[in-house]
């Protein structure tokens, strides 16, 4: 009985089956959601794009700072399709946004380098860019 109790977490860990869907349609494609749920935990880890390490001089730890680094714009500055591309994100055009190519490792170093993002999260970032990469 005690052994079973001690090994219960193992059984639970194994019992968790693959779940979920490929469509992130009902998740907010706003910058604050994308930053909180994808960019901050995956990119702004202490040894990478944190304030301390700032690998490649990129500090992605705060929403406004990360927005400025990625888009080349100050949060609140109006942007939209037709705005000139800057830095890693071309608002309205994920196909011209370097960030997407880096997340997929297409022709550029893959980021994050150790554990790449799953496709469904990259698509959420694409949705944010496609909708104008606004800072909201």
């Amino acid at each position: 009985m005690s052994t079973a109790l001690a090994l219960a977490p193992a059984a639970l860990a194994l019992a968790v089956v693959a779940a979920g869907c490929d469509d992130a349609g009902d998740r907010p494609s706003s910058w604050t959601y994308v930053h909180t749920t994808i960019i901050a935990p995956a990119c702004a880890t202490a040894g990478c794009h944190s304030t301390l390490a700032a690998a490649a001089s990129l500090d992605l730890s705060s929403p406004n700072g990360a927005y400025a680094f990625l888009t080349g714009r100050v949060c609140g500055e109006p942007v939209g399709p037709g705005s000139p591309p800057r830095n890693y994100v071309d608002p309205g055009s994920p196909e011209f946004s370097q960030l997407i190519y880096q997340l997929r490792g297409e022709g550029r170093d893959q980021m994050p380098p150790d554990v790449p993002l799953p496709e469904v999260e990259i698509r959420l970032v694409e949705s944010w860019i496609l909708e104008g990469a606004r800072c909201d």
Partner: protein
Amino acid sequence: MRLTLVIALVLAGVAAVAAPAAAYPRFQLTTGASRCQECHVSPGGGGLLDDYGRLEAGDTISRGGDGALLHGRWSPPGWLVLGGDLRGAGLIKRRGDELEPAVFPMQVELAAAARGRGLTLYLAAGIRGGARDPQPPLVERLASREHYVMYERDAIYVRAGRFFPVFGIRSQDHTAYVRRFLGFGTLEEPYGLAAGWSGGPWEAHAHGYVPRPIAFLGAGPKDKGLAVMAERRLLEETAAIGLQARMTTSAADRRVLAGVVGKRWFERAGLLVLAEIDVQHQMVKSTESSRWQLASYLGVTQTLSRGLLLGGGLHRWQPDLGLRSSRDAFELDLQYFPRAHLEVHLLGRASAQGNDLDGPGFLSLLQLHYYL
């Protein structure tokens, strides 16, 4: 078939990342020590070893030698505990047809603790490692992951400063998903106030923490919170079960976590099983949307002979249980302690994202570790 190929490739020798920070949880229960603090100064393990820990390092864990400071050539006064860790690593990363090798210093750290009348002053400082260039100037790589003051009396301790909560399995591998994705990555030690108690088969810990008070003090969590854990050892201290919970809040989100940790040492077979599963609810404040998350780990370690351990592990992180956004990893590692103070660690990991097992990535790492 492809999964078989993945496992075969891992077996063939690819390796992955392990790195400094916490203790080796695989030594709990297996070496006659049931609590971290039997061998370490810290109640959570990791860092400085006490006299018993150094004795075990030579007598039980490695294939021989003197585990004392500087191999016993010099002994500090009784009130002073000294130590340090030097780690170097070489890795090869493979995704698709691309190979990326790297060699880098992983850890250069010295630690000291002054102890007396129940008080401990602890300081660890060093140069943080980095696998990728360009590296910042040396002065910007100086960091102190732990510095705290602790008071102990009988079975109770109170400590304040910078250190990890006693929480979860506390693997030495900071890339373990139950560490990395739950906010216990390297250099993410929070500032806080903790208290704990141990008595008989029980121990319990509580830790309140806040964001780092001064930016200069380095990275750390941006949230404040409370983490609690209780563990009970069973079966003549060959098994343990722990329950834990954590509540945190930051400007961006609020998270509530509950988890279970289990450990079982099958002495006759020389087999240790470690497992952890955590479920977390995250609420994103700006959008008032929420999601459930899950992190789990299952590891098995076989003691092949004294100083030689073979391990395997499964990691899973699901940042959003409603989406196909999981990260899975399978790893094998070989840990060799030829003499006290020396460790060679070869560890291989295959990882996949979003349940896509067809195109796994591989990361390999050979780590050489010397502690003072």
